[in-house]
């Protein structure tokens, strides 16, 4: 049975440069795995520079839990191991070879396997790392037990890719993925789709899941918001979640016995000449996609993920493990003469203190996409305005109080105020509209990390 859930609060950001609905193939030979994509993982290398690796061969494991392996998505040679501060491994770069060889995982059939065998298979192949867990947004412990699993099949953020396109022709893979998940986690599996835009039969015809149609503005696509409406978190609860494209990769493996970490990603942004979709493999270098495809007059910021929560990468950087979007916007490193008093016909603002806030109200210019850049538009200040975060946070949480509890690192208070129900990404909109220019996401992330360490997870 399909359930429809409406979320009232939120704020949609419509930006210039959305991806056109066509999928291109592009040749890429450089790939990388970035341990920092996996929160809370302390990587322990299993390969060295110059080693040849096959598809599915482990590159490193998590020190906290050596069963969790991280495998290569391509066959080739380890070109460079980039280390950062305190010698933390930032990137394991691999140059793909012409012929792609795979590690063999033997013969198996899902029907004949028990739960432990399936989990072992997922861990061995590194596909386990496609799953994530709330609270903390980390890879779940294979010994833990979730209270439900959420498959996310839409995004509500800026430049959100169209999942109807992303899942094209992958119904069998996804259905198999669902069977795998059901075997691994004996609990309810939710498939959350967009009430307005999801039309693909590949998604809507899936069996064995509870389909929930979510209607509302961003952050309705965030897992926390969906959990709060389906089955609110309590202390000690765990919810697993997985993106539907990643689920298709898992399903594909159990159907064909091969690891094919291929997915479709969107390239979008005001600075992209031809914003469109590309078929790439996980960890691909974005350079071939953006090289001749961006306005080169401006300073640009390349973001793996969306403009609210994504990570800044170089033009020659690599797409993040869980991302299916590359955004490119202008850098805002300019001075603006008396900018704080300017009428602001073209400025992006949540408030109506600029003329742009009113032109958008006129019927003919309604929902006109705006252009943004990375300027802070002001200096950092103490928290002064109140009641604004609440307008863009559709959770039963007092955001200002929770933020302050995280700043002072009061674990009891954080728990009481509902830290388990949120992730940093839920506060992205609060951060954007904050007049005091506070970096709220990192405050929440630090709070979550503190509590995760305290809990020994």
């Amino acid at each position, binding site marked *: 049975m399909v359930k429809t859930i409406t979320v009232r609060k939120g704020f949609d950001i419509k930006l210039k440069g959305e991806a056109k609905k066509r999928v291109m193939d592009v040749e890429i030979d450089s790939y990388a795995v970035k341990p920092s994509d996996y929160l809370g993982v302390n990587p322990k290398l299993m390969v060295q520079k110059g080693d040849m690796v096959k598809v599915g061969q482990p590159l490193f494991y998590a020190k906290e839990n050596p069963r969790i392996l991280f495998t290569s998505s391509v066959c080739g040679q380890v070109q460079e191991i980039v280390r950062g501060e305190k010698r933390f491994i930032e990137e394991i770069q691999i140059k793909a070879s012409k012929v792609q060889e795979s590690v063999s995982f033997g013969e198996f059939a899902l029907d004949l396997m028990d739960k432990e065998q399936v989990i072992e298979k997922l861990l061995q192949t590194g596909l386990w790392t496609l799953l994530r867990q709330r609270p903390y947004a980390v890879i779940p412990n294979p010994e833990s037990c979730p209270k439900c699993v959420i498959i996310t099949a839409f995004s509500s953020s800026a430049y959100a890719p169209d999942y109807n396109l992303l899942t094209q022709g992958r119904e069998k893979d996804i259905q198999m993925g669902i069977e795998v998940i059901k075997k691994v986690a004996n609990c309810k599996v939710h498939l959350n789709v967009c009430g307005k835009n999801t039309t693909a039969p590949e998604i809507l015809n899936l069996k064995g899941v509870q389909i929930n149609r979510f209607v509302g503005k961003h952050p309705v696509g965030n897992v926390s918001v969906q959990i709060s409406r389906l089955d*609110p978190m*309590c*202390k000690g*609860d765990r919810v697993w979640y997985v993106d539907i494209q990643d689920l298709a990769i898992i399903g594909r493996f159990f159907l064909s016995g091969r690891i094919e970490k291929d997915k479709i990603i969107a390239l979008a942004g005001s600075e992209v000449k031809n914003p469109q979709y590309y078929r790439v493999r996980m960890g691909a270098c974005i350079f071939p996609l953006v090289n001749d495809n961006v306005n080169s007059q401006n300073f640009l*910021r390349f*973001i793996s993920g969306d*403009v609210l*929560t994504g990570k*800044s990468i170089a033009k020659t950087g690599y797409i993040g493990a869980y991302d299916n979007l590359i*955004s490119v*916007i202008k*850098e*805002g*490193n*300019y*001075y*603006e*003469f*008396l*900018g*704080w*008093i300017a009428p602001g016909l073209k400025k*992006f*603002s*949540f*408030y109506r*203190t*600029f003329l742009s806030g009113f032109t958008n109200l006129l019927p003919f210019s309604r929902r006109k996409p705006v252009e*943004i850049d*990375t*300027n*802070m*538009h*002001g*200096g950092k*200040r*103490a928290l*002064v*305005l*109140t*009641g604004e975060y*609440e307008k863009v946070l559709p959770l*039963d949480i*007092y955001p*200002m*109080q929770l933020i302050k509890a995280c700043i002072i690192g009061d674990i009891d208070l954080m728990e*009481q*105020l*509902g830290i388990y129900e949120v992730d*940093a990404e839920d506060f992205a909109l609060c*951060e*954007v*509209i*904050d*007049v*005091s*220019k506070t*970096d*709220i*996401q990192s405050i929440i992330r630090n709070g979550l990390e503190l509590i995760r360490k305290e809990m020994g997870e």
Partner: protein
Amino acid sequence: MKWLRDVLDNLKPNFEKGGKFPWLHSTFDAFETFAFVPKTTTSCGAHFRDALDMKRTMTMVILALMPALLFGTYNIGYQHFHSINPSLAFFDGFWDNLWYGIVKVLPIIVVSYVVGLSIEFGFAQWRKHEVNEGFLVTGMLIPLVMPPDVPLWQVALATAFAVVIGKEVFGGTGMNFLNPALLARAFLFFAFPSSMSGDNVWIAQKADAFSGATPLAEMMIGAELPSASFWDMFLGIMPGSIGETSSVAILLGAAFLIITGIGSWRIMLSVFIGGALMGLTFNLFGSNPYTQIPFYYHYVLGGFMFGAVFMATDPVTAAQTNKGKWIYGLLIGVMAVLIRVVNPAYPEGMMLAILLLNVFAPLIDYYVVDANIRKRMKRWKIKGGKNV
């Protein structure tokens, strides 16, 4: 504006670490960011930010205060000449009135800003912070709640008291728990009552023969109704503090604050509801003339309207939660009317009511947030029970 940028870029190294005047860094920064929005870009979290910053937020409040200031300035001139010649109509001698008002009001504004900003800059420098914009609003609010004849040295003293004791000792803008502008007024009210009360201070250099009592004072001493009509009071044609008399001008500011999304409509509305509730209660049970006036008279008397729109809504000192704002506002309305009508020692109940509720705002928030915590704990408990 390239040349100005160049000048600033040339000067900048002098004020940085290792330069000639590193101790003036905050001051330089304040002027630089006044001229140019800095070129800082996002380094973590969301990659873009709202174009609204604290400077513009505070500027919006100052803009909202402009109708009250302009009307107040003119009204001071008019009230002065009116006391000399009671047959003078409101628009007679327009330029004379306006000029007289400017001469009276401008020095008060200048004193308030100079004293307040000097202290702000000093503290910012000392703490090595950026100068906060909060005082831009406070510095305008202080003159607007002063009587036109207030001595300038008293304005200076009150401003200094408000900024140092009301704000900076707690860590500056955003950390204070009492509204600094109201604190300045309360300071004068208790320290120099002769400049802040009575019949002689509300009209600038009043002619001796003219009574000069504000409608609020008339009610205090037992009038049936104020001598000014409701509409005169609504328009603001009466003696009083510089910016507080005209409800029309204040409501224009209120509309501006609500449309821009900067002022809290919850607080404004709930203050009015609170005032109405208390006014109606007095209508039912009261025995003297003051208790019998229609509740909406309270809105246009004294500083009620100004307090509701500009003072109670100060986000730093008000309740922070939405539910809390309703309770906070309601109680301000109730207390303001209660103090006015029942306590003859304090004609201006609004000021005291807001300061009182400023003190209680954190407590109100505490209980609102506590309710949320309890709800969560209850859910955990039920869940835990099921598991066992």
